[in-house]
């Protein structure tokens, strides 16, 4: 069984990671996005291991996120940090927190609508405009400002908007 010290330490690290934001969508923390998969504190060596997983394989933000994690922990005096990247299980938008989805919408990006990534879902895209709430919208492009988003336009308020795709 893990000692109270280890549990408290890991909890405090999770709290610090809760303050690290995604470089591309700064309203979301890396916890909201489900990027952090595990935190381990080794009592004997004082080494902290943070396991993160990439959202998309080519996402250029991953290295920056690793650096931001190190900096945030360093500010709290935690200097022995190892960042471990894992691919499996593959990241999914199902891991996005509910509060994250609300923040995303307030930021002007429609949140993933379905629970899991599946082909059936892909055939019936009906997106709600984050600006006016209308469902009278159209897909402009499968890919938008980043690979993780699609570009839509609202046919009522005419505003274009990003949609964070199910993945």
């Amino acid at each position, binding site marked *: 069984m893990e000692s109270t010290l280890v549990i408290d330490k890991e909890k405090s690290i999770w709290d610090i990671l809760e303050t690290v934001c995604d470089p591309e969508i700064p309203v979301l923390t890396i916890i909201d996005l489900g990027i952090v998969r595990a935190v381990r504190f080794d009592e004997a060596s004082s080494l902290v291991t943070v396991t993160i997983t*990439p959202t*998309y*394989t*080519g*996402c*250029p933000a991953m290295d920056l996120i690793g650096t931001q994690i190190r900096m945030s922990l360093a500010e709290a005096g935690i200097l022995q940090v190892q960042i471990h990247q*894992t*691919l*499996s*299980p*593959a*990241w*999914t938008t199902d891991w996005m927190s509910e509060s994250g989805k609300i923040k995303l919408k307030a930021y002007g990006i429609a949140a993933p609508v379905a629970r899991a*990534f599946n*082909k059936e879902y*892909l055939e019936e895209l009906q997106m709600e405009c984050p600006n006016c709430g209308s469902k009278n919208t159209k897909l*402009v*492009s*499968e*890919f*938008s*400002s*980043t*690979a993780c988003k699609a*570009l839509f336009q609202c046919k009522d308020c005419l505003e274009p908007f990003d949609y964070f*795709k199910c*993945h």
Partner: protein
Amino acid sequence: MLQQSIKSYIQQDLQTQYLLHLADNALILSHRNSQWCGHGPILEQDIALTNIALDQLGQARNLYQYAALLITEKTGIATTEDQLAYLRDVGEFKNCLLAELPNGDWGQTVLRNFLMGSYQFFLYQELQQSAIGQLKAIAEKSIKEITYHVRWSADWVLRLGDGTAESKGRMVQALELLWAYTGEMLEPCDYELPFIATQSSFIKAAWEAKIASVFSEASLVHPTNEWMQSGGKKGIHTEHLGYLLAEMQFLQRAYPGLEW
């Protein structure tokens, strides 16, 4: 150039060859797609194709990283993903010829992406059951991205094939040009057999069904010529790959060992 001992190791290890083949397909296709950056027909589609190229580059990196790790472990010589991408010459690349052909017009570009993306989709679907843990993980990760790529490219094949007389004519031309390069993807070579031998006939059948259904919807006549060009998987490439590498590898050729 790669160290001779690394080259020799690759030449006798089928798993490394297979990983490099998958990685080279992803990298060369990515590089071709990236050449459209700033030249797309409209801004949204320019961005779409650039994003696809980025996904493919990420997939290539995962595969090169894994291959580099295995080479390092087996030979004891520290090897990196960059060395595998930048220090091999034409004859050492194992990508299918289809990936390296010039982009041509937009129709040819989207058709190539559809033909190759559909193949990658069914291939990675099978590799999700791979006994090799890291390959399985890469497949599980990549197939989500490839699903969106195929959705995009199939939509374009449909739009242009079933579009104006001009767009249809361009698609017919593109199909005539690219068709003879599709067979190479579907016929496994020696280093592929240990990893997908039993599934290769299923992959081929699934690919053919997918292609036929989109062609039919796009009112494109399915090609009947059966003669297929091959060689890329064994390092025998078209002249186009040399020019592509000269550009892609320029920095390492001009300033060997340079790091960002």
